[in-house]
């Protein structure tokens, strides 16, 4: 298998929080169930929202997003991008983006496996 020419890739996506469940499912279906997520906040094309505190308004232009990181070796990164992008698509501003970054080395802590085998 040389899905990514034998290389390891980090697929990193910023998605809506309510898309997370679908993304998780989609990744499992595409054969890349392992993932790491974190709460982030982002600014993009989505309009800012206004909140109020004792009558005074303030603008919150950072929207809550979830960052999904999925490192793959045997599964083509493109498939993972497709899976995430499909699952997280709503068509409204703020859907987010997916990026692929190169990974030079990988190690599984429990087994000590290295490279593509570690993922």
């Amino acid at each position: 298998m040389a899905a990514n020419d034998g290389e390891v890739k980090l697929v990193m996506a910023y998605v809506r929080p309510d898309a997370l469940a679908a993304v998780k499912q989609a990744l499992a279906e595409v054969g890349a169930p392992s993932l790491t997520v974190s709460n982030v906040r982002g600014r993009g094309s989505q309009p800012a929202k206004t909140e109020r505190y004792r009558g005074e308004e303030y603008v919150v232009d950072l929207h809550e997003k979830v960052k999904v990181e999925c490192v793959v070796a045997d599964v083509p990164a493109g498939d993972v991008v497709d899976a995430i992008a499909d699952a997280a698509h709503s068509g409204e501003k703020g859907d987010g983006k997916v990026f692929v970054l190169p990974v030079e080395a990988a190690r599984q802590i429990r087994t000590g496996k290295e490279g593509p085998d570690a993922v």
Partner: protein
Amino acid sequence: MVGTLLQATDVAAISESIRAVWVLVVSFMIFFMQPGFALLEAGQVRAKNVANVVMKNMMDWSLGVLTYFVVGLGVATVVGALTASGTAVDVGAAFRYVDDPGSWIDWLFGAVFAMTAATIVSGAIAERMKFSAYVAFTVVMVAVIYPVVQGITWGGGLLAAEGVLGSAVGAGYKDFAGATVVHALGGIAGLTAAYMVGPRKGRFDADGNARPIPGHSMLLAVLGTLILAFGWYGFNVGTQATVLTTDGAFMGEELGRVALNTTLAMGVGAVASTATTTVLEGKPDPLFAANGLLAGLVAITGACIHVTWWGALLIGLVGGVQTPFVYRWVVDSLQIDDVCGVFAVHGSAGFLGTLLIPVFDTAGFSLAQMGIQVLGVLVIGTWGVLATMGVLGVLKVAVGLRVPEAEEDEGLDLSEHGVSAYPEFGAEDAPVADGGAPEGSPVADGGRVVAGESEADAGTAGSDETGTAGSDETGTAGSDDPEEVN
């Protein structure tokens, strides 16, 4: 020691004074159930709906006392007279308390019970009901729905010994401190309202299977429970108001019975619910322990003066054990999303406890009594369901019952009130570091913090902001954009 002789009038004044101290203190304690409910409910919703929950609670009380003063108590009296056998209805007299300072202590005592019934409902429909619709409902609850029940029971109407039904059956409905008049009415109104409003998004999956939506703080739920238990002593023991009768008799045994039965029933309610869930789920469940404690209290509320101590234990046991089962039945069989389980805690527990009164009555079992208890439960339950459906049916057409799905997702704090309950914490609205830009230098790219009262400014800020941010590098945004929201 020479002195003037004390006369009977003095004893009356003394007796009334003692009674006033007692009634006032217990009324304050019952008022204190309001923060108890606020916490109990706030703990059982997600962080994004907390401000809405406490706002509803404040409005229950605030609008409620105004309504109950201007309308509620009078309606209760009128209904009581209307449904009594052969009492003339004097509407003027029914509302005379409004100008009678001598009756205002008792008005307050009545009001804190009414507000308890109203507040219970909010726990059932949390996290998706429109604030405006809820407020309208709570006003009707305090103006009519509760007063009718008050009138037909404690007000001497329909179910009372002197009421149409009561005198026909030959026994007056027994519900000492409001297990059904207050709690089960609130519980069944809540259940009905939860049915009318529909379940929260995600509460049931496509196949109708229930999916839990954990509340954001078990600590707050338990704290609310214990505050309620404190207030409940006022509720139950305080109802035994005649500490000293006008002819000078001390009511120590009655007070002791109510205090003991209340204590034992809450204890066994918590223990029984814990034991039940330990068997069912394998582990003792703190939220069910808290719910069981309250269900034990609800169950004994109507019975506490009437039954033996071991009767109280058994009634509390029933209250505690039924809680998990009734809750699951509501969820799984009725498919109703009663967020705080108010039917299991206040509804069924209240009905069951009140039905059991004749069984453990210190006065012995009486078939007539059992009959009127059954009739009473049916009448109150039916009224609670129908009145709630009627009022909410009208409100559904008039203003709608439910917030739009997008607002439910976002949370009612933001959509209904424009605020965050916990701006620094939590999954939903935690600003990162710069606090959502309330501090520091002006917000980047034109977004600007707008002070205070001008809606116009807010709109401008919003479009400035999105105007700039929206034109991203690809230059393609804009044409396919849905309208902008603030």
